[in-house]
């Protein structure tokens, strides 16, 4: 894998690391948020912290799809599987997100609910075709990267007239979440953002411009390889030193200003904005999520089964909310690594390797023992 190796080259990393150390001279330090869980994972997986000076801080953002899924949304899907007897399909990590009453989709499955792990939306359609007598519901979660495949599946289902297929649409939007963070109290402390990789290939770099223009925060879009992230950090340090606030693109091999027009058109054809949506950690954020357009409402499981969303508070000990806003670090949670571990997640940040708590537990917890 030559292509990937270029971005995981130890010598190059040391060069960038030396440049960061030399140039990051501001005494007040650099507080940079990597928005995406993909970056959180890469940072922990490659131990990037060891290549950064102490006063360059990386703060994990909320860009982890299962982390921001509130309990009430998981409850909704369990309810459909259990009470309506539907075949509930979803991506692997979603199965382990904690729900009410110590439940999860995984536990519901162990108790007899028909919950299936799928790799792609096509798998869900396939199941719907295979079981014409059963209702098949796809729990659709994720940011802008996973939205086009869902849109495609809905359009395909409409085209085929698949009457037993529907989706619980929990797709959310990255810029809205960044907006919520910057508008909140944690926002002012941030000096800049490492911008999303895959999300930006879809939406382009343009949607981040208001964060530079209106909030004065530099944004550097970066790929998911460790050298991408290092380079983006260097670019952010330089912007901050110069007093600049711009959207820069480190990931030019995949991201343009306009993004993927075809994918955006497809999403726009099938979805429109929800007025408001509750995120774990960020609370209710206006215009931050998608729902199906009226002409596709037959595929909307919330309407089809008449299930309303009921908000459920998080476990009281869980600090996920503060962590998702960038106000706390995983190790500040009292039950981190004791009651709450990846084998037994109490909060959603401990579920996926993109979640701050799981990433720190799985890759970085030796740092506390030193």
């Amino acid at each position, binding site marked *: 894998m030559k292509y990937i190796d270029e971005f995981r080259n130890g010598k190059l990393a040391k060069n960038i*690391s030396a440049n960061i150390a030399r140039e990051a001279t501001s005494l007040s330090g650099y507080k940079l948020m990597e928005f995406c869980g993909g970056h959180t994972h890469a940072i922990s997986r490659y131990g990037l912290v060891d290549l950064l000076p102490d006063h360059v801080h990386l703060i994990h953002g909320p860009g982890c799809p299962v982390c921001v899924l509130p309990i009430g949304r998981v409850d909704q899907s369990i309810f459909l599987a259990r009470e309506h007897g539907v075949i509930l399909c979803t991506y692997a990590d979603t199965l382990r997100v904690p729900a009410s009453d110590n439940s999860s989709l995984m536990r519901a499955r162990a108790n007899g609910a028909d919950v299936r792990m799928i790799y792609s939306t096509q798998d869900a359609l396939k199941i719907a075709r295979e079981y014409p007598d059963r209702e098949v519901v796809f729990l659709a979660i994720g940011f802008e990267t996973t939205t086009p495949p869902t849109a495609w599946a809905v359009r395909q289902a409409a085209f085929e007239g698949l009457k037993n297929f529907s989706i619980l649409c929990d797709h959310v939007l990255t810029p809205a979440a960044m907006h919520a963070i910057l508008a909140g109290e944690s926002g002012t402390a941030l000096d800049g953002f490492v911008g999303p990789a895959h999300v930006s290939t879809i939406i382009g770099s343009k949607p981040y411009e208001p964060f530079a223009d209106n909030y004065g925060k530099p944004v550097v879009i970066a790929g998911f390889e460790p050298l991408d992230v290092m380079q983006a950090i260097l670019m952010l340090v330089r912007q901050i030193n110069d007093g600049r606030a711009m959207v820069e693109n480190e990931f030019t091999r995949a991201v343009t200003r306009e993004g993927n027009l075809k994918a955006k058109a497809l999403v726009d054809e099938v979805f429109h904005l929800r007025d408001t949506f509750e995120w774990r950690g960020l609370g209710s954020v206006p215009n931050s999520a998608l729902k199906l357009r009226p002409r596709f409402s037959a595929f909307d499981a919330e309407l089809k089964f008449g299930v309303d969303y009921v908000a459920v508070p998080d476990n009281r000990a869980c600090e996920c909310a503060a962590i998702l806003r960038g106000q706390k670090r995983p190790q500040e949670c009292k039950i981190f690594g004791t009651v709450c571990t990846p084998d037994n997640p109490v909060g959603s940040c401990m579920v996926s390797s993109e979640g701050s708590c799981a990433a720190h537990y799985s890759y970085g917890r030796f740092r506390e023992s030193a």
Partner: protein
Amino acid sequence: MTGLVKPNYSRPLDIKHGRVDMSHGSGGRAMAQLITELFAAAFDNEYLSQGNDGALLPQETGRLVMATDSHVVSPLFFAGGDIGCLSVHGTINDVAVMGAQPLYLSASFILEEGFLLSDLKRIVESMAQASRESGVPIVTGDTKVVERGKGDGVFITTTGIGVMRNGVKLSGDLAQPGDKILLSGTIGDHGMAILSQREGLAFSAPIVSDTVALHRLVATMLDSGVELRVLRDPTRGGLATTLNEIAKQSGVGMMLYESAIAVNQPVEAACEFLGLDPLYVANEGKLIAICAPQDAQRLLAVMRAHPLAEAASIIGEVQEDAHGFVQLTTRIGGRRVIDWLTGEQLPRIC
């Protein structure tokens, strides 16, 4: 008229078109026929042909090692092998990494009603070949049939017996700070061969399972006189899981070097695509050796001279650590923990 009756005749099994049915597990004539025409014919050896409920084996001097392993892999046939040879290799390897010379195997089959006899024959012949090539005969066995839908084609359990080599002391709790950790080759090949086939993923090059019997490699390593402390084959859960087990047993930590751990290119690509870490993916033909630091280079040379460990390397060292962390120095120079596996990552791979 009497000339037409052949009192002792029974029609041979229709292996080409036939299927397993409940009578093949009933203990009656159909079962006897399946055993003679399929299993005994393929496995053929003096112990099996004793034809009794158990095999009477020659006396051995030395301590005995026994290991057992059940195989439920899906798909049954995959690039580089099938459930048959896998079930032979797996148990031979478990006996071998104890420091023993594997001598005999037993094989137990759970067949699902409706399973194609032609597939069964392929599997049995693959087992027979693996057993012949390794010089470890299958000396006794059993067959049961379950109703359609109650099994998944075939499940195979093999048990192996071996005799411990004199003066060898290997155990997971013997790793000491300063020891070197060696690995016999690339990781992740078996698990990704299974998974890429199961998910219908097509990559530029096919991924081939590494399933193989390791007892001869082990014998060569033990013959070299190097002071080996731990030998393990990193199967289910991969390299990461096996090293965590050893670290826990020995009460030590480890530091690995990512750049020394080899992964075949298509395996790396498949892992990348599925979001898996090759460190956690199963191997069926690799071993980990931990030895005293002064012996490491010699052991490495011995391993590299053997065809099954040409790509062997020193992948890290044992260190003192009260927390028992297995850590990794990444290719770009950062550090991280290599943790125990969480949840069910890859079911039904062996």
